[in-house]
């Protein structure tokens, strides 16, 4: 039997997605090979949030040489290696490691967000402990939870996620029950009248099309119950890569498929 190649894996992803209603868009600059190519023989697959050095090394330790990250590998969204090559600290080390360990990287971003459910959202909801039965409609990303305070909800999210660098805006005593979940930069607007609190990934602090931090601060001053729980880009999209591993497993039965975390980005000072 011929060995499984990265090209085989990608072709299967494309055809299964097409069957499930997500036609492949060849114009994508994101969902492409970022290191290695279709001929690389695959020993195992690791899904991860981003092609961090840590994710690649951990995957390689487990005998997984095909990395499927949701985000980029070279610290910029188009994965422009000219930008990364300017770095003398780690770029060469990372590339040498990938060469030595016969790593192949294929990114899955745009098409993953077109799947239903979008695993980045459903994974986040699962990992922050939102009961799927409380979602207002399939794929609405809106949940109605038993009324609690913003402070209690944020503490719960932090406890179940186990990450320190969670940031919250708003009055900790605000009574909240209607939750909107975001993923990555796709943060729902916290000023929607039917949303009390947004749990999301990352957003520009100011100068966006809608700046949540200032809005929620003003809401707190006015006594309007609003809250924003920012778990981070990594933390919001890593979860769904578990679902992506589960989705891949049956279509590549020849090799191990595992979710390997890209690692904690931030720590916080005392």
């Amino acid at each position, binding site marked *: 039997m011929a060995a499984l190649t990265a090209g085989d894996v990608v072709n299967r992803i494309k055809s299964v997605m097409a069957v499930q209603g997500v036609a492949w868009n060849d114009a994508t600059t994101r969902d492409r090979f970022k290191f290695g190519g279709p001929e690389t023989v695959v020993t195992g697959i690791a899904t991860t949030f981003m092609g961090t050095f840590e994710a690649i090394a951990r995957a390689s330790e487990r005998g997984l040489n095909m990395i499927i990250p949701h985000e980029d590998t070279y610290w910029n969204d188009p994965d422009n290696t000219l930008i990364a090559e300017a770095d003398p600290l*780690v770029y060469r080390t990372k590339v040498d490691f990938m060469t030595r360990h016969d790593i192949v990287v294929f990114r899955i971003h745009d098409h993953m967000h077109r799947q239903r459910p979008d695993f980045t959202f459903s994974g986040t909801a699962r990992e922050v402990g939102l009961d799927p039965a409380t979602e207002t409609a399939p794929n609405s990303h809106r949940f109605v939870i038993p009324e609690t305070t913003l402070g209690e909800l944020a503490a719960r999210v932090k406890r179940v996620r186990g990450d320190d660098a969670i940031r919250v805006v708003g009055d900790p005593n605000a009574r909240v029950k209607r939750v909107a979940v975001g993923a990555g930069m796709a943060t729902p607007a916290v000023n929607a009248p039917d949303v009390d609190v947004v749990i999301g990934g990352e957003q520009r602090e*100011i100068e966006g099309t809608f700046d949540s931090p*200032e809005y929620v601060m*003003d809401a707190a001053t006015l006594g309007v119950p609003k809250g924003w729980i920012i778990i981070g*880009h990594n933390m919001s999209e890593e979860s769904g890569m578990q679902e992506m591993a589960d989705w891949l497993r049956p279509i590549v039965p020849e090799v191990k498929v595992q979710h390997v975390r890209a690692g904690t980005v931030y720590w*916080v000072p005392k």
Partner: protein
Amino acid sequence: MTHISRRGFVALTAAGAAATPFLLDDALTRASAGVTAQEIVDRVKKNIGVEWSSDDVDTFKAGDPSTIVTGVVTTSMATLDVLQKAVQAGANLVVTAAPTFYSRADLSAPAGRGFGPGGGGRGQPPGGNRGGAGSAPPPSPATVSGPGTGASAPMPPAPPLPPSVVPPGQPPAAAAPPAPPPPDPVYAGKNAFIEKHKLVVFRLAYHWNRRTPDPRAQGLAAAMGWTRYKAGEDMLRYELPGLTLESLAGQLKKTLGTRGGIRAVGDRGMTVRTIGLLPGYTMIPAAIAMLPTVDAIVAGEVQEWESATYAQDVAFAGVKKGFISIGRVVNEAPGMQVCAGWLRTIVPEVPVRFIPAGDPYWRPL
């Protein structure tokens, strides 16, 4: 320094006035009548030391530019809390680094909900028109008082609420079915406070932050006591007595008064001697250009998948480098503190104070 000193400014205006006696009378009249917000902004444009471009960022965001200014407040972000403190301090001109109305566009009513700038956002009572045509809703004392609520009966006296939630009365626009959704209560509350206190808000960010040295870096170094350690004239680099990355982050948190916004990447125990600043919002090329030349970067805001994961990769490879993000709003504060000092030199007529918006973020237990 590129700005003109106070003495220099007085000398310049005196010379100008002497050359044009007709204008002198005008200037004296104005002086007795006070200085307007527009006049202050004109002085800013003239003295800031960078060419004033016709962008839509550094403009008036609220209020009447012809308002006589009683006092100036500079701030990192004109939150309602800052506006309230400005009023308490007797100021009516607020100069802010960040937007006032929750977006770069700074529209005083939310976009996309049927409340364009001309659509009646400003001053519209919260909850007005909620009941739809023909069924005047009972006024809710929690949100509404005064005329404009649709109630035909005389209103009871306004309840003792924070003034910011009591919008000034305005007749509703001619009712046109279907009734629009209720105005966003946060926009409405902020607009009402601005109107009630006749505040003027001007954004000064793009031009101010183009000054050399970068006022945010200059102010941050001054706040941290690093100015004597500066390495180079751009105020972006400092050589400190060694300290650990963890103590550096702890000192920043304590001195800048951050709460949950400060986050760090790298070995906590590594020694930091050289620090590089990346003020404001920066992208990956800036971090790649700076990190190899310093032990640690102190940045305002970056995107997580860019500079933060770059630092994560560097640390994972065992290279002793640190990266600290203090937050964009926190980073604008020291720059606007510098701005208050500068404004005092060109606006001698009224008090100028700096009031920070603080760190937007807290961290759950």
